């Protein structure tokens, strides 16, 4: 009886330890002044979702990011999703370059941040190990998006392990982003 209890307790403890501690909004905050202080370095059209996504990087990291080098510790990338303008007939509005027209309607925010120690704390299996990056998702009003499946962030960004787990920023630096 006693022994069984101990086994049960031990199993409970093992579960608690194995539960990943990654990607808590406590760790990866939404930078308050990203709109004014960060560098807007790209925007990606998502015609399939009728969205435009704006990409920002913190100026401290951008100042020292170099082509071909892993991104600096302390890099914070914010992706801001907006609804794209749709005409009365339901088609996406395009500008003269064929790009979508973003509206002011914000639909959500995604943040990834690289800090020494994040990787060790995350303790993810190799197929989800994104080095020292951690992720968080926020709603349009800035509150944490508790529905976001944060483990998926790691799984999908893994495909860009060759460019420091980013889809845009590392490549854009390599292509010669203005400082």
């Amino acid at each position, binding site marked *: 009886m006693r022994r069984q209890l101990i086994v049960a307790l031990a199993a409970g403890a093992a579960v608690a330890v194995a539960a990943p501690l990654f990607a808590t909004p406590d760790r990866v905050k939404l930078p308050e002044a990203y709109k004014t202080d960060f560098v807007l370095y*790209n925007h*990606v059209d*998502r*015609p399939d979702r009728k969205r435009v996504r704006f990409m920002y990087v913190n100026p401290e990291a951008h100042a020292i990011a170099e082509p071909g080098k892993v991104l600096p510790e302390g890099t914070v990338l914010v992706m801001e999703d907006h609804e794209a303008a749709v005409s009365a007939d339901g088609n996406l509005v*395009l500008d003269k*370059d064929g790009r979508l027209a973003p509206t002011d309607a914000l639909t959500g925010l995604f943040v990834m941040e690289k800090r020494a120690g994040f990787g060790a704390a995350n303790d993810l299996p190799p197929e989800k190990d994104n080095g020292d990056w951690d992720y968080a998702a926020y709603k349009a009003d800035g509150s944490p998006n508790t529905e976001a499946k944060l483990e998926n962030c790691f799984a999908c960004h893994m*495909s860009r392990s*060759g460019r420091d787990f980013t889809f*845009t920023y590392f490549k854009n630096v390599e292509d010669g982003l203005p400082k």
Partner: protein
Amino acid sequence: MKGLRVAALLTASALPAATSMAEEIPVTMAGMAYAPATIAAKIGDNLALSNDDSEDHNVFVATVGHAVDLGTQKPGEARKLALAKAGRFEVECVIHPEMKAIVEVQQ
């Protein structure tokens, strides 16, 4: 007044002629590779990207000024990418980092 009307009619009729010169360039994905991998196009052309492979792909461009993500395409699905801006960009796949094509769009 009458002159204006004629001018309007003329520009309207000129449009279809210009667009009929636009080409649709087929791009395939069989064997996890874009084919052709190097594409020369002109403004007004379209890439017709069809997934003729046996797994999902996701067309994605990260190049500044051309960045776009067409979403996941299941086998058999096709999507279009209109080329409305001159420049050179790389077509990637979100799922498979080794899939690449280079597109050069001229005036």
